[in-house]
């Protein structure tokens, strides 16, 4: 049926190989540049102790977190664009990220959740995200169901209200360093990467990707339209509710460890579709791999562009992402998910 049925598979394998090469390369960059050979030595347990410490305890967890967060945001982007059938949707559309920012701001400016120690910021962000997700779901359901338009409207409105609350918390805070910390968190950073903090987001992203892959046929039908999906035996309300719940947890978990990294969830799904077509079976893994590769590269730029300070990730993703998005928009062949 398809003239090039192997193409999506080849693309995914190429992305995977690129990622395998990019990972040690990314770890070579940093405050102290290391030759890739020494990075690889350290990864295999050789080299001197200082190098091993830098590579294994600092750069490897950080690079892996970049991969997990990049993959997760791209996958969340695919899911949200299918859920609301809108090519301009990004994972933060549903207001979840604004809830996370209220939680994180409360921790930073008011010392909330002190009992969680070093996990307080992540816990605050995750709880805020979940509460915002529940609020958006509750409002949308009480108005008649999780339809795309209602989700977009209530997500945007509730998101704005929560952002206002976060801004007020910063405004009220007497500590100028707190404002700086909130801003840095809002713009996304992987500086907090540690081995301890890696497994939760990894598990959440892995499980999310597996679930979405398992439902990929349903998602294809949903992308064609809700009427076609129900005609094909798909329970549209159940799939929508499942997607929403999964997105709230996924975005909450990612924002909790890396802040609100912009653009990845908006742009990478489109790039994946350009590479492998529209079927979710291929879009999801391609977006995950491309997102991982992208954020890995972005984090390198964020670390070394203006040494010795780190630039927030969203600054880099925005500067790279906006032109990419405009180029995509200019392509006549590509119409952003909707025909004509």
């Amino acid at each position, binding site marked *: 049926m398809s003239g090039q*049925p192997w193409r999506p598979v080849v693309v995914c394998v190429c992305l995977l190989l690129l990622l395998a090469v990019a990972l040690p390369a990314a770890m070579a960059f940093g405050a102290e540049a290391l030759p890739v050979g020494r990075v690889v030595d350290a990864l295999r347990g050789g080299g001197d102790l200082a190098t091993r410490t830098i590579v294994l305890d600092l750069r490897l967890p950080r690079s892996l977190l970049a991969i997990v967060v990049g993959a997760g945001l791209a996958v969340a982007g695919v899911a949200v664009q299918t859920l609301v059938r809108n090519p301009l949707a990004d994972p933060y559309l549903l207001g979840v990220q604004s809830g996370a920012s209220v939680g994180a701001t409360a921790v930073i400016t008011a010392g909330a959740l002190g009992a969680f120690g070093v996990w307080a910021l992540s816990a605050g962000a995750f709880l805020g995200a979940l509460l915002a997700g529940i609020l958006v779901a509750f409002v949308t359901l009480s108005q008649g169901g999780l339809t795309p338009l209602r989700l977009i409207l209530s997500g945007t409105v509730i998101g704005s209200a929560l952002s206002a609350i976060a801004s007020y918390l910063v405004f009220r805070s007497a500590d100028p360093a707190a404002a700086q910390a909130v801003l840095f968190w809002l713009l996304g950073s992987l500086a907090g990467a540690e081995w301890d903090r890696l497994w939760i987001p990894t598990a959440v992203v892995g499980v999310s990707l597996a679930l979405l892959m398992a439902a*990929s046929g*349903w998602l294809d039908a949903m992308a064609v339209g809700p*009427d076609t999906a129900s*005609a094909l035996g798909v329970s549209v309300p159940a799939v929508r509710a499942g997607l929403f719940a999964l997105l709230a947890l996924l975005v909450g978990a990612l924002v909790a460890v890396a802040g609100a990294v912009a653009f990845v969830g908006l742009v990478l799904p489109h790039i994946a579709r350009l590479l492998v077509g529209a*079927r979710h079976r291929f879009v999801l893994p391609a977006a995950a791999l491309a997102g991982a590769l992208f954020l890995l590269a972005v984090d390198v730029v964020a670390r070394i562009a203006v040494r010795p300070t780190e630039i927030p990730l969203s600054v880099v993703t925005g500067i790279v992402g906006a032109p990419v998005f405009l180029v995509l928009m200019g392509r006549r062949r590509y119409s952003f998910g909707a025909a004509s």
Partner: protein
Amino acid sequence: MTAPSPAPAGSRTAPPLLRATGLTCAIGRHVVLRDVDVTIEAGETVGIVGPNGAGKSTLLRILAGVRPPAAGTVELDGVALGSLSRRERARRVALVAQEEDLPAELRVGELVALGLLPHRPPWAGGGKAEARAVDAALAAVDMAGTADRPLDHLSGGERRRALLARGLVQDTELLVLDEPTNHLDVRHRLDLLGLVRGLGRTVLMALHDLDLAVRFCDRLVLVHDGTARSAAPDPAVLGAVFGVAATPVRHPVTGETHLLFDRHPEVP
């Protein structure tokens, strides 16, 4: 010499493929359908017609099993659609919806293959059998060899036919089409309806164009004022329901009966 009369009521004939009884449906407080009965015999092409807002789409969706009625039952071959799981129902009734904005990067073959979704798990797909089914369905709608074309390269008529092929591949006893000729020009309307007739399937379709409905359907279901009645295409009845004057005219070349419409003389 007498005209062949319909079988007398109560005689032992094959039961209808679809039998809907006592359908009632409300949208909000507005009752759209009240105690509606519909039957469809196997092999028939039945058109649902009615004025805008009369509840054609609602009735179509209820008969296709994707929308539950507030009261009443829809039975297909003696099995209540409501008692089937969604998947089982989708293996027996195919509804082809209008779907105006299709994903542009999706290819024709991929869209058509979605029709196999009720027959396999949602993570599966691909393979030789799928390709064969898709090619056969595309050939049936006169689109052989287009499986690799992206949907945004299709004309409006081709898109309608691709959607129809999606319904054919579902391989069901009943094919339900929602306004299959909407937005098509005159030639594509004729082509598409001729193609639907030629499929040899049991078809239920909602149509806007009364003249086409009369010419391409064996029987019409008139939806009007909360009721639905099965009718042979009678110009007087159609005219009364739509509030227009309908005049049957013989086509000078083909000899087919066409309907001409005019504003009702009694309506100023």
